[in-house]
């Protein structure tokens, strides 16, 4: 006989009881779902508003969530990303303080040699945009981001080649590795190892590898061509004073970064001072420090670069952690607002169901069952909302990407995405259903059956506070939006010290080679052209470097001046409408002017001279290489903004030198199209086969504020969303309130109150809440936006008009939202409302 232990009649009965329990639960659950469906169906307007409001909130926060996820994921895909750091540098020299992501060429070798915990290093020397063509073609294609890189590149970041051998690629000078897209652009194929490319019509490079395009969420996302560092002569020089190399280091596992930092601090004594003493004999660590100067190296983890770097120049476009915080804030509150709405509307709606609850309770339903029933309903709505939200987000994604300047996609193939979304939906359903369920299940049957609904004691209930909260957020976001846009407006209209209107910039004019002067000459002969200038230095934010200069009468490092040196031609100031405040401009006929300079006002300050005193004085560059060349100051130019308005205007000297990177053309016509096509024709004659790239100076200027503009646009969209959601909530609460006060309104009308008196009364009740919200949110918005503005050296004052306008707007919106319900309640016939006895 088989042993039937555990199969006694008793346990069998237990089993039966258990089964019937399950059955009962299943029936109960089916009943809940059924009732939920029907009651939602019976209230299409309520269900629609509720689902729609929640869906909008969910879609908004879903997009923001994806955006933040993308921002936080930067550079994490690289193998060993956790062990990779970059050496950054804070430097103060000659009055200028610079935060630099670039360090000296011998840095990498020194780390490799002296630091036991270093496993690998790699350097990038950015070349920016360059023209390439395959040797069998005559037309160039412009690659926007190119760089020299050490051969350790692949090992460092765990990158593979799809064609070529990564052990040997980039070892030899004049070899390069390109991305799949670049290979397809130049050769129409990806099997191109061994083929050659011509760089800027001059140097021949051999392709030694093709790699996949770099991830969109990495610091290398823009780079398409990597050239062997061996071809960069300066990279082998032992110069610690020129800082042009992005240097990355991979440390061994379990390296203590505080020890690493101590060793970095030692580099000053070991390498930099001995090198500097060649120029400044007798300089010691003490004397260097005493002069107020410093060089401090530190490391930044690779994965922090995108959001946490505060260097002026980075390898790629960087995000800011502030924006992530701001967006998290907006995303969180969006979803919170949507939940609050849901609660308000559900509670309002529940009055209609008070009788149902009364009957259920009378028939023996307990409170838990009621709560479960209402939570089932809210979960159903939450679930429907999420489906709708994903659809809305999917449709809105291209616009959002456009707005945010990203290429985010919804990870439909990621199982984790569904898990996260389902969890989120459930939590949201339970959360937003909790308060209504709690309130409704509390109804006392006898009261509700009599139709009295439930009594509401204090005026300051949860719902009122939620409304205050919702509108506080709305006011805050409105203030934020207004301030951002006013600041952008301010930047756009700021007098920059030069004229950016009607200035066309033709980039890569050097591609015309020897013909570039002829090109300029012919362009000048066009009647639509007022003036033209050739220079690689345009007065917009861009990667440029400082040099140290010394006054002839003070050749001491204590008096070093950090200034930018721009090579320009004699038409430069005329083309940009820059103003001289002393002296004269360049004369291209004068040989003496090749050793002359025109400085800006900021340089005067550093020199400690007045404009008149400065004229005729001579300055010289770093005296290290042989005998110094002196430049005579022949003019002083009014300060103009050549960096972003976030920065102060720094010292700058103009030098008369051939520099043909770009040509700026000042037009004197409104017919831009024909002027451009005339110029293009001349270009095609003078530089056949070379791409003609141009943009307008004011557009170029605007693009340097893309990050702000994006933030502004994102703010506008999500501010509108949150206002919309807040209004839905207010609408719901107004309905709720009108319903709750039906009897009271009836009594008042019987006693002689007019429609306008009642409408006014009901509306002001809500306006009080909105006014409180405004009073709290305005100072908060003012405070936070002032912090945001601190980023700009040139900024607006937040005026009372902005605050007043935000308050006005939100109150107007609130009035419009509430008055519908108020008027509806006020014109209702009191006979009907009093009859519900």
């Amino acid at each position: 006989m088989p042993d039937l232990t555990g199969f006694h009649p008793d346990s069998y009965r237990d089993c039966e009881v258990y089964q019937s329990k399950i059955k009962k639960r299943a029936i109960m659950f089916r009943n809940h779902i059924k009732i939920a469906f029907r009651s939602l169906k019976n209230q299409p307007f309520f269900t629609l508003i509720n689902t729609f409001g929640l869906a909008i909130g969910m879609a908004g926060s879903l997009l923001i969530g994806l955006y933040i996820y993308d921002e936080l994921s930067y550079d994490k895909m690289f193998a060993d990303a956790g062990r990779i750091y970059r050496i950054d540098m804070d430097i103060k020299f000659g009055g200028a303080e610079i935060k630099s992501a670039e360090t000296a060429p011998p840095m990498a070798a020194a780390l490799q040699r002296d630091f036991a915990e270093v496993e690998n290093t790699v350097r990038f020397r950015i070349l920016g945009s360059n023209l390439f063509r395959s040797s069998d073609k005559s037309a160039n294609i412009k690659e926007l981001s190119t760089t020299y890189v050490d051969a350790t590149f692949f090992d460092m970041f765990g990158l593979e080649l799809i064609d070529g051998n990564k052990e040997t690629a980039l070892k030899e000078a004049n070899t390069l590795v390109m991305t799949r897209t670049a290979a397809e652009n130049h050769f129409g194929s990806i099997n191109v190892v061994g083929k050659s490319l011509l760089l800027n019509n001059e140097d021949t490079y051999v392709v030694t590898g093709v790699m996949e395009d770099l991830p969109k969420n990495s610091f290398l996302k823009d780079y398409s061509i990597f050239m062997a560092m061996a071809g960069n002569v300066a990279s082998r020089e032992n110069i610690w004073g020129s800082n042009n190399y992005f240097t990355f280091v991979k440390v061994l596992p379990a390296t203590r970064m505080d020890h690493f930092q101590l060793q970095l601090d030692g580099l000053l004594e070991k390498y930099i001072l001995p090198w500097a003493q060649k120029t400044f004999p007798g300089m010691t660590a003490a004397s260097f420090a005493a002069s107020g100067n410093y060089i401090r190296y530190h490391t930044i983890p690779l994965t922090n670069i995108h959001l946490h770097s505060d260097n002026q120049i980075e390898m790629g476009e960087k995000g800011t952690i502030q924006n992530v915080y701001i967006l998290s804030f907006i995303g969180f509150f969006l979803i919170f607002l949507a939940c609050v709405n849901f609660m308000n509307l559900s509670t309002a709606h529940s009055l209609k169901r008070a009788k149902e609850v009364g009957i259920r309770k009378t028939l023996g339903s307990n409170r838990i069952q009621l709560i479960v029933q209402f939570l089932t309903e809210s979960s159903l709505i939450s679930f429907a909302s999420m489906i709708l939200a994903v659809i809305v987000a999917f449709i809105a994604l291209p616009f959002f990407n456009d707005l945010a300047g990203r290429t985010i996609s919804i990870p439909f193939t990621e199982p984790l995405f569904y898990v996260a979304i389902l969890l989120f939906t459930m939590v949201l359903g339970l959360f937003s259903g909790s308060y209504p369920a709690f309130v409704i299940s509390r109804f006392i049957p006898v009261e509700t059956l009599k139709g009295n609904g439930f009594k509401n004691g204090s005026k300051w209930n949860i719902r009122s506070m939620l409304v205050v909260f919702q509108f506080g957020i709305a006011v805050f976001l409105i203030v934020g939006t207004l301030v951002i846009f006013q600041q952008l407006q301010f930047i756009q209209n700021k007098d920059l010290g030069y004229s950016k209107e009607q200035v066309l910039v033709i980039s890569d004019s050097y591609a015309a080679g020897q013909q570039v002067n002829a090109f300029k000459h012919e362009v000048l002969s066009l009647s639509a052209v007022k003036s033209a200038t050739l220079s690689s230095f345009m007065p917009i934010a861009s990667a440029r470097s400082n040099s140290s200069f010394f006054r002839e009468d003070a050749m001491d490092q204590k008096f070093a001046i950090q200034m930018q040196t721009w090579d320009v031609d004699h038409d430069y100031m005329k083309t940009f409408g820059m103003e001289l405040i002393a002296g004269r401009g360049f004369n291209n006929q004068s040989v003496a002017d090749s050793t002359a300079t025109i400085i800006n006002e900021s340089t005067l300050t550093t020199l400690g001279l007045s404009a008149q005193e400065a004229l005729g004085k001579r300055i010289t560059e770093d005296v290290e290489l042989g005998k110094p060349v002196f430049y005579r100051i022949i003019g002083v130019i009014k300060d103009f903004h050549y960096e972003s308005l976030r920065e102060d205007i720094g010292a700058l000297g103009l030098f008369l030198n051939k520099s043909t990177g770009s040509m700026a053309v000042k037009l004197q016509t409104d017919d831009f199209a024909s002027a451009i096509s005339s110029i293009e024709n001349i270009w095609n004659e003078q530089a056949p086969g070379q791409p003609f790239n141009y943009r307008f100076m004011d557009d170029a200027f605007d693009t340097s504020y893309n990050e702000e503009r994006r933030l502004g646009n994102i703010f506008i969209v999500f501010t509108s969303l949150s206002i919309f959601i807040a209004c839905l909530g207010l609408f719901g609460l107004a309905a709720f309130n009108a319903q709750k006060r039906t009897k009271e309104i009836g009594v008042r009308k019987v006693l002689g109150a007019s429609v306008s008196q009642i409408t006014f009364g009901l509306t002001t009740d809500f306006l009080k809440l909105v006014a409180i919200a405004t009073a709290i949110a305005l100072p908060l918005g003012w405070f936070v936006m002032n912090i945001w503005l601190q980023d700009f050296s040139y900024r607006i004052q937040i005026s009372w008009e902005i605050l007043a306008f935000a308050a006005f707007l939100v109150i107007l919106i609130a009035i419009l939202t509430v008055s519908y319900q108020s008027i509806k309640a006020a014109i209702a016939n009191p006979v009907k409302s009093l009859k519900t006895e």
Partner: protein
Amino acid sequence: MITIIDLEKYYATEEVRTIALNKLSFKVREGEFVAIMGPSGCGKSTLLNILGLLDDPDGGSFIFNDIEVAGFNERKRAELRKHNIGFVFQSFNLIDELTVFENVELPLIYTGVKAAERKERVDAVLEKMGIMHRRKHFPQQLSGGQQQRVAVARAVVNNPKLILADEPTGNLDSSNGNEVMDLLTELNEAGTTIIMVTHSEHDAKYSHRIIRMLDGQKVTENILADYKSSVAP
């Protein structure tokens, strides 16, 4: 004071048209105390709503103080109502959020009486009703009888010519009910016209005249024996 001739009122749903008042006619003279009786659904409340200018008849004539008011719009009715008519309801209809004083004050606010005078008049009427000591209480803190006194106080504070009472004792025990009826009688003796809907034969005996209704029509009308000598027990 009130003359209604062939008054008609219908209620229509999608399928059924119910006749609430079917060519009803009667008169009420100034200073009268009239009780209207009849079973549920006979049209008493509808009649009271029309008499109280809360609702508009569908046909017939309603002359109030020599003015034809049938067809008046909401605004005109409200104007006439707030100066001439006070209401007493079965369920008191006090506003829970307002104190006794504030409840009684309400009609004066809507007729535009100044604050100082309002206080004086509210205090006077509270005194008269014997609920002065409760002036700062909220309705829930009072007994039913006290609540109905407040309601009566509110109904008379404007010195209306007409008081309409809809089962004023319906929610009260008999001793509280009698008190309220005594109160109404006193008001009537002081000159206020009263029209009262009631189910209670006992209460009806306080009146001068009983109009009995059925299916929207007047069935009988009895003038009580002691009318003119007019002192109720």
